[in-house]
């Protein structure tokens, strides 16, 4: 039931040098409607991923307004929330991702210590 409207724009990037150990990253972005905050979050997420993962990632955007029942599975309270489904373990970051350093730390994508 994941909504795909954002997804189509970002998939099929070529994998490049990846710092993270797993093959493919699956990130799930929970938003509540297309609010400025969620658009900002999406924009920020995309740019960070482009920079760090170079195509080896997949972003699923879930709009809770359309699919409210999905909030339960990932225990979503705050929006926007990003859940790193893969690689394990799962991690969560909340907010509009404007603090890049924190996003990198939160996703365990430490750019370079």
């Amino acid at each position, binding site marked *: 039931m994941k909504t795909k409207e954002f997804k189509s724009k970002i998939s099929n990037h070529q994998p490049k040098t990846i710092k993270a150990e797993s093959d493919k990253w699956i990130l799930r972005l929970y938003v509540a409607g297309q609010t400025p905050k969620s658009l900002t979050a999406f924009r920020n997420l995309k740019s960070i991923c482009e920079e760090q993962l170079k195509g080896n990632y997949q972003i699923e955007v879930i709009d809770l307004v359309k699919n409210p029942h999905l*909030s339960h599975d990932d225990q979503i309270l705050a929006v926007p929330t990003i859940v790193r489904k893969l690689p394990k373990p799962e991690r969560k970051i909340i907010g509009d991702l404007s603090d890049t350093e924190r996003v990198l730390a939160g996703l365990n994508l430490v750019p370079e210590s």
Partner: protein
Amino acid sequence: MKKNKIQPQHKVLPKTPTGIQGLDEVTEGGLPKGRPTLVCGNAGSGKTLFAMEFLVRGATQYNEPGVFMAFEETEKELITNIASLGFDLKKLVAQKKIILDHVHIERSEIEETGEYDLEGLFIRLNHSIESIGAKRVVLDTIESLFSGLPNPLILRAELRRLFRWLKEKGVTAIITGERGDGTLTRQGMEEYVSDCIIVLDHRVTEQASTRRLRVVKYRGSTHGTNEYPFLIDENGFSILPITSIGLAHTVSSERISSGILRLDTMLSGKGYFRGSSVLVSGTAGTGKTSIAAHLAVSACQRGEHVLYFALEESPDQIMRNMRSIGIEMESWVKKGLLKFYSKRATFFGLESYLTTMLKEINNFKPLVVILDPISSFIIGTNEFETKSMIMRLIDFLKFKHITLFMTSLTTGGTDLEHTEINMSSMVDSWLLLRDLEFGSERNRGIYILKSRGMAHSNQIREFILTDHGVELVDVYVGPESVLAGSARIAQEAKEKSEQLLHQQEIERKRLELDRKHKALESQIALLQVEFEAEKAEALKVIGLDEERNKRSAQDKREMAKSRKADINVKPTIIKKAK
């Protein structure tokens, strides 16, 4: 401070009945309908159970489905925990009457990267509410968001929005909060939820705990402001707002027998008033329990329910002891008319004990309640609390026209007419049992110190425990003192022999008199006989004399005749005689 806009005043604030026993009385109808209520208290004060019962009662009794959003316990834990109150949550969940939603937040898993809001929570809650048409919502304990999510500023703003949103949705909500230092809740939730605030408390005094509930605030409604003790047991919450009972109860002039004939006689012939409170006080072993047992059995014989609170002895022990004086209680227990409730006073706090007693009374519906003994409620220095508790019990029972019989142990050395908790003014009838000591022997005496509304006896009676129950006998009231026991028996025997002696004396005197009388009579008879004899003799002498005189006269005449004297002889004779 208060951000909630004051709503246009309704004539009557609509309320949602909680279904929790007693709470609807305290709040005069329930919680404010369509508004959030804050329930706060320390850990273990029963907030979650309170909130859960609100939902369950709503779902089962008022057909109002509910959503329980748990921030601390999982669904499974909730179902297990609530099962102890006798609620089958699983079934209610399956019937879509209740939704349990566990919100899990793990601070360590969450990184804050910028601005966020709680729209996810709103959506989630909204989804649950819509899916079953919920009218009731519980957020337990939403404050844990503060430890789970960063940036309290955002959280505060969001919570404020949440409560406003709940109001707009028109659901009656309970928000629980942990008690903070000096504030009602740790995060100052009372600033946001200000329509109704209920504080639950769990205090321990003298090693005994008491749960209490207080309605701190109820905007737009009157409510009871006291602290009400409450219980949590297998039937859920029960709050008994007994402090609100006034003195306006009606009284009965019906009389009930004490079970002891002569005691009834002392109580102006008819026994106690129904619905009155009777106190019997006395030192150890004076027979207080026996009097209580008599009352119990006599009430059972009339087919009345009797609830016997035994605070110091087990039911078996009481029944055995009473059997030894010929009072048979067991069969009444079997028939279900007599019920023992046997728990030490220290088993829980005073208030809890009272609440438990009231609950038992409400369930069993007795006409006679026995409390044996009240003095064991006093532990340490809680005299005042005990007094207030007994007072409320008395008020409650009077209100229900239940006769209360209390025993009170007077410890040695203290003034007999002083009960341990100075409650003489609270009771209607006060029987005093006391030891009467003479001649190296202890006996029991009973008298009625007071009995409101009847002309009771002012006499002391000796109180004897026989193998067929209690008997009252007159004591010996002599010139020197009151005697009882063998001294009385000895005195009575002495009196009896004295009386016998006295009687014999009288008899003897009477006999003597009789004898004297008879002697006198015989003497009289003798004298009479003598007299008769003398009289006869005298008469004979007189007769002879006359005869002689006559004869001599005749002789003279004849002599004269023979001498041929003339007729005028006679005057010559007379002259001669002169």
